[in-house]
C-alpha cells in the first residue's frame, strides 16, 4: 500500500551530477595533504616515538585524520565499485511512504538517529579491557578495523537492506541462502542476543555491586521513566523534547541525591546490595520491562539515554581536547606477548580482536543497519554518510573510551580489573597482587586505593571488573580537570555509571523483546499459535524463556568462582564477531550475485579476517590446553580434581565452588562449539553461492523493483555546489509539487 507520487517530466533533476565538486583545486589538494600529514605525524607519535608519556591529543588526530581520509577516498571507492547508488531511483522512504515507519528523513537527523541506535555500552567496555595489552594494539585495531571492516559492513548491509525495502538481516539471509542457511543465521542471531544481553547485564551488576550510591541513582531511573511515560501518555502527548529535558534534570538530581543517600546509615543499609541480589533484580526487571507496553518504561528510558549518549560523547570529546591528558601506559605491556593477562586471559591474536568488537567491527550493527534506518533514507547516496560515517563516529567513541581508560594510573587499573579471586577483594590483597604482576613502574599502595575509592564516593574500587567502573573513573578524572575540580570527581564517576547503566538497561529490555519475537516466529513453525504475537500467554512464555536464558548466563557469571567477566567477555566478543561474519557472508553473496567480482575483495578480506579471528578464538576456547584460556581444559582440570577428592584448585576453594566451575565451563564450552559450527554453516552457504554466481552468467538480485524518484536531497553532510543549484530549483516549485522533507 505504497503511496507513490508519480514522477513528472517537468520536475527538476532528482540526482546531482558530480562535475565541479570532482575537480581537484590546489586548495583542496593542500587541505587533504595537510590532513594526511597531521594523521601521519600523529601515527608516528603513537607508534614510533612512544616517549615516556604520550599526549592524548595524538589519539584524536590519528583517528580523525584516518577516518576523514578513508571516508573521502575508500568509502567513495566502495560506492563506485560495489554500491553503485542511483539517486534517480526512489528509496523505500519514498515509494513505500506511509507517514509512519517509511518516512523520508533529513540525513543529519537520521545520522543522529542511526548513531543513537548503534552506539551503546560495547564501544565503551571493550577498549577498557583491551588496555591491558598497552594502548597501541587496541588503537590500531579500532582505527584500522573500522575503516576496512566495521564501517564497510554497516554501509553495505544498510544499502542492500534499503534496496530490499528495509528487510532485516535474517530475511536477507533466507533470500540468499534458502531455508537452511537462513535458519542457521537466525538461530545464531538468537543465541548471540542471549549472550550479549547476559554480558551487558553482568557489566551493570559489577558496576552496582556494593555501591549504595550507584544502586540508588540507577533505581531512581525507574520512577523517572514511569513519570515520563505518564506525562507523555496523559499530560502532554508527543512533547518528547520537553519531557526529555525534565527527565534529564531529574536524573541529575538522582545522581546528586544518591551521594547524599549513600552517606546516611539507612541509605547504606537499604541500597548496599550484593551482586547476586542485583543480578536477580535485573532478571525480574528485564522480564517486567519486556512484557509491559513500551510507553511505560522502554521509550522514556530510551529518550533519556539518547539524550545522555549524544551529550556525554560531545562533552568527553571536548574534555579530551581541552585537558589533553598525558598517557603513561606503554604502547605494549608485558601481557601483549603472552596469554596470562589478569584482566582477561588469552594471546593478542585472536583475543584482542574479539575483546574490542563494537568500535572496530560489530556484527550487532548489521541488525540495526538492516531494518529501521533503511526505511528512512531519502537518497541512495546518503547511505555512505549514514552507514560508513555513522560507524566511524562509533569508532571515535571507542577511541575516547580507550583514552579515558589509559589516562588512569596503571596500578589502579589492574587493581580494579583483576578478579576477586586474585585480589581477595581487599586493598592489601590488590596492592600485593599488582606487585606480583612484576610490571616495571607499576605499583599501587593500599592507601592510594582507598583514597581513590573515597574520591569517587565508593566503599572500594578493588576488583570492580567489567570495564564500566574503570571507564567511569577515567572519565571522571578527565571531566573534573575540565569542569568542577576534585570535588566534582564523585559526581562525574556516578554520572558515567548512570550513563552506561541506562544504555545497558535499554539494550537488555529491547534485546529481550526482539529475541522474544524471533522465538515466537521460530516456535510458530511448529506450533502455529505462537505466530500470533498479540497472544498474551504466548508472549509471556517466550519472554520468560528468553529472560531465563540470559538470566542463567548472568547468574552464572555473577557467581563464577573464577571471576565471571574475564571468562565470559571473550564469549561476548566471539558472538558479536560471528554475527559480523554472518552479515559479511550475506553481503558477499549479494555482491557476487550482482556480478561485481573484481571488487569482491572489499568484502572478502574483512570476512576472511573475522572468520579466522573468531574460528581461531573459538578453537582456543574449545581446544586450548591452557586452563585459563580453554573452557574445556578448565572443565577437565576441575572435574579431575573433584574426582580425586580435592577441595581446592588454585585460588578456588570448596567443593561447591569447584562444582560450579565444572558446570560453568561446560556451558561456556558448549556455547563456543555451537557458535562456531553455526557460523561455519552460514559461511559455507555464502561461499557456495559465490561459486554458483561465478559459474553462471545471470544477475540474480532480490531487490525491490525500481521506482523513479520524484524528490531531491543532498548526499553528503554539506551540499555540493551542484546540489545547492538543484535544491534552488526544487525550492522554487509550487508547494504541492515538493515533497516536504521533515525532520523525521
Amino acid at each position, binding site marked *: 500500500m505504497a*503511496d507513490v507520487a508519480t514522477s513528472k517530466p517537468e520536475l527538476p533533476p532528482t540526482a546531482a551530477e558530480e562535475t565541479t565538486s570532482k575537480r581537484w583545486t590546489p586548495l583542496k589538494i593542500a587541505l587533504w595533504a595537510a590532513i594526511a600529514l597531521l594523521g601521519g605525524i600523529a601515527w608516528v607519535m603513537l607508534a614510533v616515538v612512544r616517549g615516556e608519556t604520550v599526549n592524548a591529543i595524538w589519539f584524536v588526530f590519528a583517528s580523525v585524520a584516518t577516518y576523514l581520509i578513508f571516508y573521502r577516498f575508500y568509502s567513495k571507492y566502495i560506492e563506485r565499485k560495489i554500491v553503485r547508488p542511483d539517486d534517480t531511483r526512489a528509496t523505500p522512504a519514498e515509494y513505500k*511512504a*506511509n*507517514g*509512519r*515507519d517509511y*518516512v523520508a*528523513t*533529513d540525513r*543529519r*537527523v537520521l545520522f*543522529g*538517529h542511526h548513531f543513537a*541506535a*548503534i*552506539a*551503546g*555500552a*560495547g564501544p565503551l567496555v571493550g577498549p577498557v579491557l583491551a588496555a591491558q595489552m598497552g594502548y597501541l594494539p587496541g588503537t590500531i585495531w579500532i582505527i584500522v578495523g573500522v575503516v576496512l571492516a566495521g564501517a564497510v559492513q554497516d554501509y553495505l548491509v544498510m544499502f542492500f537492506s534499503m534496496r530490499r525495502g528495509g528487510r532485516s538481516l535474517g530475511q536477507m539471509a533466507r533470500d540468499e541462502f534458502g531455508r537452511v542457511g537462513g535458519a542457521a543465521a537466525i538461530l545464531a542471531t538468537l543465541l548471540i542476543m542471549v549472550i550479549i544481553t547476559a554480558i*551487558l547485564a553482568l557489566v551493570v551488576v559489577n558496576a552496582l555491586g556494593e555501591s549504595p550510591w550507584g544502586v540508588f541513582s540507577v533505581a531512581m531511573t525507574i520512577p523517572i521513566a514511569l513519570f515520563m511515560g505518564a506525562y*507523555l*501518555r496523559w499530560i502532554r*502527548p*508527543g*512533547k*518528547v*523534547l520537553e519531557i*526529555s529535558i525534565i527527565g534529564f534534570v531529574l536524573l541529575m538530581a538522582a545522581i546528586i541525591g544518591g551521594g547524599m543517600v549513600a552517606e546516611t546509615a539507612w541509605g547504606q543499609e537499604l541500597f548496599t546490595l550484593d551482586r547476586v541480589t542485583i543480578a536477580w533484580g535485573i532478571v525480574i526487571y528485564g522480564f517486567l520491562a519486556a512484557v509491559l*507496553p*513500551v*510507553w511505560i518504561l*522502554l*521509550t522514556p528510558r*530510551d*529518550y533519556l539515554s*539518547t*539524550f545522555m549518549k*549524544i551529550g556525554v560523547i560531545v562533552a568527553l570529546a571536548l574534555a579530551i581536547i581541552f585537558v589533553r591528558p598525558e598517557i603513561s601506559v606503554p604502547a605494549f605491556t608485558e601481557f601483549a606477548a603472552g596469554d596470562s593477562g589478569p584482566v582477561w586471559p588469552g594471546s593478542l591474536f585472536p583475543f584482542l580482536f574479539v575483546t574490542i*568488537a*563494537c568500535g572496530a567491527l*560489530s556484527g*550487532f*550493527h548489521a*541488525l*540495526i543497519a538492516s*531494518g*529501521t534506518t533503511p526505511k528512512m533514507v531519502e537518497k541512495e547516496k546518503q547511505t555512505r554518510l549514514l552507514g560508513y560515517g555513522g560507524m566511524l563516529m562509533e569508532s571515535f567513541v571507542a577511541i575516547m573510551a580507550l583514552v579515558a581508560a589509559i589516562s588512569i594510573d596503571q596500578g589502579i587499573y589492574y587493581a580494579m580489573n583483576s578478579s576477586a579471586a586474585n585480589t581477595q577483594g581487599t586493598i592489601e590483597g590488590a596492592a600485593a597482587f599488582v606487585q606480583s604482576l612484576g610490571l616495571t613502574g607499576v605499583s599501587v599502595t593500599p592507601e592510594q586505593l582507598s583514597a581513590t575509592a573515597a574520591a569517587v564516593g565508593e566503599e572500594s574500587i578493588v576488583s570492580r571488573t567489567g570495564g564500566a567502573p574503570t571507564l567511569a573513573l577515567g572519565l571522571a578524572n578527565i571531566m573534573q580537570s575540565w569542569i568542577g575540580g576534585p570535588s566534582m570527581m564523585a559526581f562525574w564517576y556516578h554520572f558515567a555509571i548512570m550513563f552506561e547503566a541506562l544504555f545497558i538497561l*535499554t*539494550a537488555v529490555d*529491547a*534485546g529481550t*523483546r*526482539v529475541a*522474544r*519475537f524471533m522465538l515466537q516466529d521460530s516456535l510458530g513453525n511448529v506450533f502455529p499459535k505462537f505466530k500470533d*504475537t498479540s497472544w498474551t500467554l504466548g508472549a509471556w512464555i517466550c519472554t520468560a524463556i528468553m529472560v531465563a536464558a540470559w538470566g542463567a548466563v548472568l547468574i552464572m557469571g555473577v557467581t563464577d568462582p573464577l571471576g565471571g567477566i574475564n571468562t565470559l567477555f571473550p564469549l561476548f566478543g566471539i558472538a558479536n564477531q560471528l554475527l559480523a561474519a554472518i552479515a559479511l557472508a550475506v553481503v558477499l553473496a549479494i555482491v557476487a550475485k550482482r556480478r561485481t567480482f573484481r571488487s569482491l575483495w572489499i568484502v572478502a578480506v574483512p570476512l576472511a579476517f573475522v572468520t579466522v579471528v573468531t574460528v581461531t578464538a573459538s578453537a582456543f576456547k574449545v581446544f586450548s590446553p591452557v586452563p585459563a584460556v580453554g573452557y574445556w581444559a578448565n572443565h577437565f582440570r576441575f572435574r579431575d580434581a573433584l574426582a580425586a577428592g580435592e577441595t581446592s584448585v588454585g585460588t578456588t576453594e570448596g567443593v561447591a565452588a569447584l562444582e560450579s566451575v565444572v558446570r560453568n565451563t561446560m556451558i561456556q564450552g558448549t556455547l563456543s562449539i555451537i557458535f562456531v559450527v553455526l557460523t561455519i554453516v552460514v559461511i559455507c552457504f555464502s561461499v557456495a553461492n559465490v561459486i554458483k554466481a561465478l559459474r553462471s552468467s545471470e544477475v540474480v538480485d532480490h531487490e525491490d523493483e525500481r521506482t523513479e524518484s520524484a524528490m531531491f536531497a543532498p548526499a553528503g553532510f554539506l551540499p555540493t555546489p551542484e546540489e545547492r543549484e538543484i535544491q534552488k530549483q526544487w525550492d522554487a516549485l509550487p508547494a504541492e509539487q515538493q515533497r*516536504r522533507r*521533515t*525532520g*523525521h
Partner: protein
Amino acid sequence: MTASASEGRPAAAGALLARAWRALVWWAKGVTGESKYQAYVDHERRVHPDREPMTERAFWRDEYRRQDANPEGRCC
C-alpha cells in the same frame, strides 16, 4: 566604532544565534522522534487529503502500540 555598527553587530549575532538555536531544536526533535507526528500529518495531508489525520494523543497511543508489536534492537 560608530553607533550603527555597534547596534548592527549584536542584532546580526542575535539573529545568527536564534537560527542556530532553532536548528538545534529542529535536530533534537528529529532525533528524539518528536517530529514523527508532524511527519505523519504532512504525509496524510498530501496523500489522503480526504480523511482527517489522528489527533496527537491518538497518534502517540497508536505509535507505541506499533512499537510494542515491532520491537527494535539497541546495540550493545
